[in-house]
């Protein structure tokens, strides 16, 4: 570990990984919530055209990509808003046109090369410069602060656009903002993760968070933790294994997802073995006994005094304190 940190490019790469690992899930969760998980992927395609323009004109590719991506973000949301038939086609033209234009321009640019292109698409450790890092840090700070301040609005608009609109929230502006944040995150990713893989880091940690958390907030915190850990871990692994960093990070994020899914399933299977009979009580729960009920797999639990009780033959089963949400249908009644 010491030898890694003594290398300047590795210090830069690790910091860049940390920034993108935290930003990507934070923005991605709202995309998942809106059912637009793959929009980040399209943004990555478009960003390549910006990179190409930067290389061709010898300006910072980070800045040119940022401009292109912000324009694309506004265009995407306006197209969605207008709901024009053919909006889908327009998106396809934008995404694939951006990718194709990027590849062609980079091939023709004085400083462009095949390795260069591969680095932008799949991530490369050695490419993070000091000045890149400063730009990434500023952009990541913008993303983090914006999401922190506006998280309730982003949540409300993504969760129920109609209600948010009816209640006076600026829905279109919020959606454009989210698209711009997505674009900015794509730009931050372009060194260590790569433009074709960033979308995975927006989505996979959130998929893991859904297994580990119990609320939107809880799942999101897990996702950010998983995102930063896999991102940094992937960079370290990629250094020792000499593999492209972005692809390594994504494989690691998938491994963590699978591990979390198995772990949670195993824990639930173990809990299932335990059968807890509730302390005897005289009261007989029924459909309209007045206690709140909650669906629990194929039966209902009755809630009272901080307990969840379910009928089991001649007695009542304890199905956990009423703040746990074990909605897993495999959880009940394994005891005979």
């Amino acid at each position, binding site marked *: 570990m010491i030898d890694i940190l003594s290398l300047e490019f590795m210090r830069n790469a690790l910091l860049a990984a940390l920034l993108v690992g935290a930003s990507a899930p934070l923005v991605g969760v709202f995309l998942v919530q809106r059912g637009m998980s793959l929009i980040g992927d399209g943004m990555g395609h478009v960003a390549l055209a910006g990179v190409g323009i930067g290389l061709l004109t010898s300006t910072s590719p980070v800045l040119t990509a940022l401009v292109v991506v912000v324009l694309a973000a506004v265009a995407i949301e306006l197209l969605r808003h207008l709901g024009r038939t053919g909006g889908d086609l327009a998106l396809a033209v934008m995404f694939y046109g951006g990718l194709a234009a990027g590849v062609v321009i980079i091939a023709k640019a004085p400083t462009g090369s095949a390795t260069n292109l591969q680095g932008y698409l799949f991530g490369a450790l050695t490419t993070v410069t000091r000045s890149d890092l400063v730009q990434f840090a500023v952009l990541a700070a913008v993303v983090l602060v914006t999401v922190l301040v506006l998280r309730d609005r982003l949540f409300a608009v993504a969760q129920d656009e109609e209600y948010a609109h009816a209640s006076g929230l600026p829905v279109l502006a919020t959606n454009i903002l989210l698209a711009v944040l997505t674009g900015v995150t794509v730009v931050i990713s372009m060194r260590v993760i790569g433009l074709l893989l960033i979308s995975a880091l927006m989505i996979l940690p959130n998929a893991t968070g859904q297994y580990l958390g119990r609320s939107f907030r809880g*799942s999101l915190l897990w996702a950010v933790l998983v995102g930063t850990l896999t991102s940094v871990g992937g960079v370290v692994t990629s250094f020792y294994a000499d593999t492209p960093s972005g692809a390594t990070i994504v494989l690691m994020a998938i491994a963590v997802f699978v591990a979390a899914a198995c772990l949670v399933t195993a824990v639930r299977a173990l809990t299932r073995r335990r059968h807890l009979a509730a302390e005897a009580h005289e009261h007989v729960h029924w459909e309209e006994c007045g206690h709140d009920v909650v669906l629990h797999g194929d039966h209902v639990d009755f809630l009272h005094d901080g307990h969840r009780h379910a009928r089991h033959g001649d007695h009542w089963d304890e199905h956990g304190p009423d703040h746990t949400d074990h909605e897993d249908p495999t959880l009940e009644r394994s005891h005979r």
Partner: protein
Amino acid sequence: MQLSTTPPVIQLSGAAFGYGDRTVVSGLDLTVHRGEVVAVLGPNGAGKSTLVKGLLGLAERHDGSSRILGHEAGSAEARAGIGYVPQRHTLASAVRATAAEIVTMGRTVRTPWWAPWRSRSAADRSLVEESLAVVGLGDLASHDVATLSGGQQRRVLIARALASEPEVFLMDEPTAGVDRGHQQVLVAVMRRLVERGATLVIVTHELDALAEIVTRAVVVRGGGISFDGAPEQLSPGDDAHAHHDDEDDSPPTSVPTTILTTKGGPR
């Protein structure tokens, strides 16, 4: 009465609402004053939800005028005074959200643009808690809404509207799927809201459940308002489930009997 000094809560004159180039309801004249509880009745597809969406500025206005609390429907000022309970079947989305997080949206929509983080204040949080408790969901506040039953999800949506402390509630079938016990709880809640000065517009197919608070019935049918008056004067012919109009989805007069006699069915 001071009715002359305050504008009517809802004022429709000659209003028509629809989507795109299709007008669903037209010729609407309706004036609702503070403290009224209006039940909107009518068969499926008659345009009840469209009427409500028109008042919210969600459906397009094709004609006439429509004002809420003295402001153009759909304007920011009008929207700031409305609590909307949509006609929705499920609250589930691709990510987890607890009942409390959903109800917090009712506070989020009331935050000023210059301080959007305000919906986390202690006062806001206790309003959210109180709203959930009032609809009988206090125990389920931290549950994932996707795991709640249909009736419980409807109550979450009602709590969300309550949390936004509106002057006028526009509720689209708020009691659909809610059990009788909790319907009574909701009626009690609505009565208290009216006592505190709120105005309620409730789309419903179950007038009986709300009979004790409803002061006025409006029947939407055949592309307009076909009845407007005291609920007692509602004749069976005006009732929500009576017949006709090609546009409306009226119950069929005869039921094909094949599926009912197929073997394997109950004998």
